[in-house]
Structures are given as structure tokens and as C-alpha cells.
């Protein structure tokens, strides 16, 4: 646990306890102010970017420009360009001789901006700047998500209450979260297992295979750990955020996996990338590829994650094809009805996912070498 994480924890805990001393109708705004202050102290650039982008996005959606299509396109292009520019600068900062500090929560609030723009465009949300600031400047979700939805957050603002029965569960969730991040992820995986894996002798592919398993496990521990912390603190503040993981090891196929793993991100990609591309082009494969590559780039702007996205898109297309076939072919119906099918499908799914890291790694290295 770094110093920053310790300060983050202290800010979260003091806010969660402190807000209840204020009148309930101002509490959500106090969280907004505290979040702004937190960002300004620890990352002024992040505070500035989040505030200006929120102002711009809100200004765009609230403007009564005659073509909502232009507004929505301008908003999305602005968000995507800002994201790519900052990510690009982060990668090439040493090449171009400047040093830029890490922008906190960029990937999360970019998704939230786009979500807001499209939902306003579709008429599901009535723009409200105060409420939008509350949504974007929400301390528990500012550093590591989840990509919570505006409608649910707005509803939570209107029906907040402190439930004594839920307080102990919230502390439990926070504790589990930190155990995942610090004990299992940062200590067990990085300090104990990683050096051990590096010492064992095996061929390159096997090593990459093990590395891929380790990477996925680390990703899970980090993402789900931070989500637990966010959800726990949100409960202490009277909010109920969306769950982000739902037993991903039990996934029976790749589609099922993406409905259980980092749910807020995968559902964001489904709603704001897959569905629009599919609705415009009516080409499911193209829509799936775009959605999965977007998800890859969201993790990191690199060749590795572009191949990773394509690999998952192919996997999803295979699952669709198989499901369709299984509905028509009797032998496949019999096979998928067997008792051993479910455990087999689970092992197959997990191995396909692990293999993804290996394939993407090889493909990106191959391309870079070429």
C-alpha cells in the first residue's frame, strides 16, 4: 500500500463519517466538494481536466443546438480525443522530452462522460449540472471506478439513508477489498509468486502461459478489490453502487464471462460501442470487434491490447456460431446437455481467456519485430 493509497483511505473514511453531521440535502454536494479538494491536492491536473471536461460535456448536452446528432458526435469525439491524447502523451512523454503526471480516473470518467452524452441524446436523462458534478466527482469511484451509471446514481442521491445493518457489511467489503489489493495482489502475487515464477526453468510458451494466468489473477484482484472498496465506502455514504464482478470463474462461455467480469466496463462497451455500431451497420462481427478492441484500448493504448480485443471478438463470434449450431444439431444438443459439459465448458473458457494473453503478446511482438 503506497502513501497515496493510505491518504485515499483516510479521505474516504473521514468523508463517509463526516457527511452525516451535515443536513441530508447538502451531503451529496459536500462529497463533490471533498472530491474536488482531494483531486486538487493530490493531482491538480486531474482536478482541472475532470472539471473542464465535465463543464464542456454538460455545456454540449445542455445546449439547444438544432441537431442533437452533431452535439452527440462532437461530445464523443472530444472525449475520445482527450483520452487518446493523454494516454499517448503518457506513453511518449520521455520521447518528446516532457513529463506529465498521471491523470487520475481518466479511463473511468471518459466512459461516464460518453454514457451521459448518449443517455441525454436518447432522452433518458434530463441534464442537471449540479447532479452531473455529483456524479463525476464521487470520491469512492474517482480513482478506480466502477463506471457506475448516472440513472442509478441519481436515484441513490434521492433515496440515501444510513442503514446500520449495512454498515458492518460495508466495513467487511472494504476489508476484503484491501486484502485483495494489498495482501493477495501486491504481496502474494508480486512479492512471493512473481520472483518464484521467474526462477523456474521452462520453455518460453509455458512461461508466457503462467505469466498470463498471473496477469489475469492480478487484474482480478486489483479491479475487484478497488470495486469492493468503492462499493463499501459508497454504502457508508448512503449510496448503492453497481457490482463489478460476479463469480467470473463460473463462466460457461466467453459471453457469459464478459457478463461476469468487470461488468460495468463490459456493459458500457455493449451499450455504447457494440449496440450503436450494430444498429448502424447491422454487422454483428464488426460491432463485436469494435467493442472488444475498445475495451482493450481502455485498459492500455498498445498493440498488445488491440490484439487482445480482436482475440476476444473472435472468441465471442465462435460462441455465437456454436450456440446457433447447438440449437439445430441433435448431437450438439446432446453434448451440451451432458453433465460433464458445464465443467468442461468452464475449463475451456478460462483456458481460452488465459491463452488470449499469450496470443496477444506473441502477435504484438511479431508485429513490432516486423
Amino acid at each position, binding site marked *: 500500500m503506497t502513501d497515496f493509497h493510505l491518504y485515499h483511505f483516510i479521505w474516504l473514511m473521514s468523508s463517509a463519517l463526516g457527511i452525516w453531521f451535515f443536513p441530508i440535502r447538502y451531503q451529496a454536494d459536500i462529497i463533490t466538494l471533498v472530491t474536488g479538494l482531494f483531486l486538487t491536492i493530490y493531482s491538480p491536473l486531474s482536478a482541472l481536466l475532470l472539471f473542464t471536461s465535465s463543464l464542456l460535456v454538460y455545456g454540449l448536452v445542455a445546449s439547444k443546438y438544432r441537431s442533437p446528432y452533431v452535439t452527440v458526435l462532437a461530445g464523443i469525439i472530444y472525449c475520445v480525443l482527450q483520452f487518446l491524447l493523454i494516454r499517448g502523451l503518457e506513453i511518449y512523454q520521455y520521447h518528446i522530452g516532457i513529463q506529465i503526471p498521471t491523470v487520475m480516473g481518466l479511463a473511468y470518467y471518459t466512459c461516464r462522460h460518453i454514457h451521459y452524452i448518449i443517455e441525454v441524446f436518447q432522452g433518458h436523462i434530463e441534464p442537471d449540472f449540479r447532479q452531473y458534478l455529483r456524479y463525476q466527482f464521487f470520491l469512492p469511484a474517482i480513482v478506480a471506478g466502477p463506471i457506475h451509471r448516472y440513472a442509478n446514481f441519481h436515484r441513490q442521491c434521492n*433515496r440515501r*439513508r444510513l442503514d446500520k445493518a449495512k454498515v458492518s457489511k460495508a466495513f467487511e467489503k472494504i476489508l476484503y477489498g484491501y486484502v485483495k489489493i494489498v495482501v493477495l495482489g501486491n504481496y502474494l502475487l508480486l512479492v512471493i509468486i512473481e520472483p518464484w515464477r521467474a526462477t523456474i526453468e521452462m520453455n518460453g510458451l509455458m512461461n508466457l502461459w503462467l505469466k498470463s494466468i498471473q496477469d489475469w489473477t492480478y487484474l482480478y484482484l486489483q479491479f475487484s478489490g478497488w470495486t469492493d472498496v468503492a462499493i463499501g465506502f459508497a454504502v457508508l455514504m448512503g449510496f448503492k453502487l453497481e457490482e463489478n464482478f460476479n463469480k467470473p470463474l463460473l463462466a460457461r462461455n466467453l459471453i457469459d464471462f464478459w457478463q461476469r467480469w468487470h461488468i460495468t466496463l463490459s456493459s458500457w462497451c455493449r451499450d455504447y460501442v457494440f*449496440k450503436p455500431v450494430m444498429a448502424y451497420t447491422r454487422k454483428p462481427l464488426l460491432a463485436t470487434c469494435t467493442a472488444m478492441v475498445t475495451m482493450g484500448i481502455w485498459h492500455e493504448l498498445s498493440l498488445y491490447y488491440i490484439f487482445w480485443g480482436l482475440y476476444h471478438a473472435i472468441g465471442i463470434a465462435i460462441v455465437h456460431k456454436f450456440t446457433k449450431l447447438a440449437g439445430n444439431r441433435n448431437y450438439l444438443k446432446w453434448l451440451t446437455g451432458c453433465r460433464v459439459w458445464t465443467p468442461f465448458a468452464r475449463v475451456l473458457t478460462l483456458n481460452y481467456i488465459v491463452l488470449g494473453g499469450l496470443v496477444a503478446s506473441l502477435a504484438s511482438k511479431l508485429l513490432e519485430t516486423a
Partner: protein
Amino acid sequence: MKNFADTFYAISNSNIANKSFVQFEATKLKYGKLVEQIGRLTSLFKEYGIASGDRIIVSSNDEEVIITVTCAALANGICTIVVPQDTAEIRANSCIKRSKPSLLIIDQSLQALWQPEGIPTVSIGKQVSRTNSLLKKIVGKKTRGKVYHELVADMPVAEPSLNFSDDQPALFNFTSGTTKEPKGVPITYGSLFAHLATIKRVFNYNSESRILNNMDLAHVDGMIQGPLLALYSGSTLFRPCSLDVQHLQTLIDTVYNEKISHFLTVPTILSLIDRFIEHNDHFEGEHFHHLISVAALLDPGLWGKLQNRFGIRICNMYGLTETVTGGLFCGPGDDFYQLGTVGKPIDMSIQIVDDKFQPVPRGNVGELLVQGDNVFPGYFENREANRAAFHEGWFRTGDLACQDDNDFVHIKGRCKELIISGGINILPGEINEVMIKHPAVAEVATVGLPDSIFQEIVVAAIVLKQGATANEKDCIEYGRGFLERRKVPKKIFFVQELPKGISGKIVIPELLKMIQKPSDETISSNNNGTEIIGLAAEIFNTDKNNLKLEHGPDQIKGWDSMGHLSLVAEVENHYSITLSAREVMNIKSLNDLWSVIQQRR
């Protein structure tokens, strides 16, 4: 059983002075302030020479005023009549004339409209600035020209008389009757407190209870099961918003964020909640105890649906203004609960009789008669109405009922002409009396048509005078000029003649048949709704009987992203239309898809 003196001593205790008695949208009325206001109003009553046994009328937009005045009047043995704000001038004046109040406490706007003559009136309105008030104090007579809040603020706090007897009227409600001859129902101290004791016991109200009831204070369910029940049990009442569709979300959010224990509402609101409120977690948590439906019959379909949806038991109370509010309780205990019934009587006796007042065999339908401490003594100065309403000490409810082998009472209909719309009792005669005065109307008959939201809506069938013309809008506008908002017919049917029996009396079932013929449009839209369900059943490979228009991806297995596209493609092909990308993305249920198709066609 506690009476009001006990209740007053309990709330005068300084321990609860800081506790909220009523929480309105933005303000709170604490018990301490209530006691102080009762004291000041006691002085005001003395100033106007009003004593135990007198009557006062209150009508205001300011709910805090209505509640404090009613409580203060109760503490002084004065009977309060709360008249709805939108009462038409003729009816308001009839109510004033019949009840002979010693004082009116009404909004300034009403004073100009009703123009009560010869009755002292305190108007509720904007306060004059304190400087002005001080000047008046010096030069003017104490009470002249001052508005309610100034007057009350200037009064000293006095001890209320607590002088009343059980058979003395505590509240007075005008129910049904006609515009000129409204029937007054006096609720005595005895029946009021007997019934409050019953309700408190049945639903386990205590000082920890947090009651949500935003029904109209002019109706017994709003006043008695609201502020008076909160006062009686030392609990807190929440009135966060008015009772309409626009505030439905606020109402339901209050249940959760204010940790409501008892939520009282009418079937109309339950029906709106079912239609317009998303999510099912509003009643979760250990704080919530009972959802109680009052004032009208709850449709068993809606009842069961909401219970399944929210995972709670919905209790039902049956009663009339004449029985204070209730008498028969369905729930909360298993012994008293059977969906679709009005439960069993508690602290009240019932009889089901035929038209010769002979008890009918069990299971047979007859008129429901009731008797008990909560039953009122008789209509105010209305011998004729009382002769018809009582039989050998039993009150005739006018409802047709039967009792099953397990003693549960089922309501089967009404034997008197009465329309119950959104929990409000409406006598057709009152509407006929107004509509017949329209210059183009020769004959009129008002009936209630079944409605999924309001249970019944008021409609009028009109025969026009020969050569006269009038349209629906004219007639409805005309009705608005004389009737309260909820009594104005929602629809007018122009008919050649009204179906009549040999005696010349209108045959209501025949009239209902005449005006209830479904239109071709309705038939056509129903068929198309079924068609969409058929298409979806084919695409998602499921039985169409299991599908409903409101179903979406959460309810239909196989409606994933690909299924979504397949369904859209099938619909486009079937109806030869092309849906825009925005429309495709916006479809969240079969109903959404159906709406898009309707717009396109």
C-alpha cells in the same frame, strides 16, 4: 382506551417536545410547537367566544394550519369541519349553512370566493410586516385585519379546556348528499378514540412508528389515519408531497430514505406505482412493516402482483366515513388475511341481510350491516337520511357482501348508486343535478365506468334537447363550473335516449352496455400487440403465452444483443419498415418495439 385528554398530556411531556410530529416537504412541525400552538389557538377560540360543543370550518392550502387547528379544536371540545379547497361555491355555502359554524379559518382566496356572511372569519394568507402589525397593535383593535399567523402569534399560550364527552362530535365530514343538501357525518369523540385504539392495536403503531400518509386532510383517511393517528400513538407522520403522478417518485423514495414503517395509500396510487415506478427495492429493510390500502376496493390482480413484485404483504382496510374510517381488516396477521377479501371485522359486529333484513345463509350475497363503537350516531339534522341508513341500530353500508366459511367478507357490489373514483365517494345524483341545468341537456344519467387506475371514472350519458347542440368539451367545461375537480365527468356520451324500466327509472346495467362497446381501434391495437408477442416468441423460441408486452431482456431468455438484432430484423421484415439506429438502441421491451411500429404506421 386513551381519550384526547390522555393524548394531550402525553404530547405535552417535554421529553418529546423536539420530536417531529409531522414532516412536510420542507418543514417540520415538532410536538413542542404543536402544544404551544394548541395553547395559542385556545386563546384565539376564547377571543372569538367559541366553546366546547361549537363548530368551526377550516379550509386551506396550508396543511400545518389545518392540522394544528384540528388538534387545538379537539383539545377544546370544538368540532372541526375540514372542507376541501376546491369545493365549489354552492356546495361550500351549503356546508356552511347546514353546519352553522361559529368561526371560519380559511384562505384569503376562499374568503373572496365563498363570501360567507355574518360568520366571523380568520383568513389565512400573507403576513403583514411586523412594523405594520405593531402600528396596528397601538392604534387598532386587536384582531381586526390580521391574518391567521399574526393573530395566533399574538395570542398568549393557554391551557386547553379538555372539556368534552364521548357522544360529542369531534369531527364533522360532509359526504355525498347533493350539492344543496350535503349529508353531514359527525364523528364523536367516543367513536374516534375507540377506532384509533383499534387501528393502533391492529397495525401495532407505537412511538417509533413513521407513518407515510399524504391523502387529503379533508377526508377521514387523510386526517384520522394521518395526523390524529400519529398524535394518538406519539409517532411521526410524513407528508412529503401532494398525491399525484408527478410526485409518485418522491412518495416512493420517502418510504426508503425516511425509513417509513407504515405506508397508507389508496388503490389508485398503488396502480400508478405499479405502472410508473421502476425497481422493486423500495420496501427493503427491517424498518418497513405495513403497506395499507384504504378508501376503495383493491383489485385482487393488482394486489397479488404488487405483493409478488415488492415481496411484502399488502393489508386492506374496509370502512366508511360513517365508521370513522375502517372496521374490517384484511391482514396484517394470517388469521385476518385473504387476498381479494376485506378480511374480518375487528371491534365491530356485522350482519349480511336480504332486502327484508333477514340474515342470508353463509356464502349468499346480501347487504352488509355494521354495528360498533366506531359507528357514527346518525347524519346531522337529517331524519330522512337516518331512517334510510339505520335498521334496528345497525348501520346499512349500502355494500353487497357475502361471508365465506372462514368468516372472510367479500364485497360483491353496491346496492346504492355510488361511484368510488380514486377513493372518493361520488353520488351520481350530485352530478346529474348540475348537468341537467346545461341549456342543451334534456336528460342525463351519471355512472361509473371501470378504470384500471381510478377503479371507476365518472361518465355522463346525455340526451340533448330537440334542436339543441352541445359537444363533450362544452358539457365538461359546464360541469367544472359547479363541481369539485374529481367529480367532473371525464367523458360524455351523447345518446338518443336513456334505457328506462317500466317505472321510468333508468336501467343502469343497460346504459353501461350501451356506452361500453369497445371501439374498432381498441380491437385492432390489441391484435397487433399479440402479433409482436407472436414474433418475439418465434425469435426467442418460447411460448407466446409466457410473453407480455412489458417484457424485455431481463424477462425473456435469449434476448441478448444478437437476439435483439434478430428481433429487429424480423419486425422490419414483417412490417416492411426500417428502424433507425436510435430506435434500435432505445428498445428496452416489446412495448417499446410496438410503440415504434405504431409511430411508423
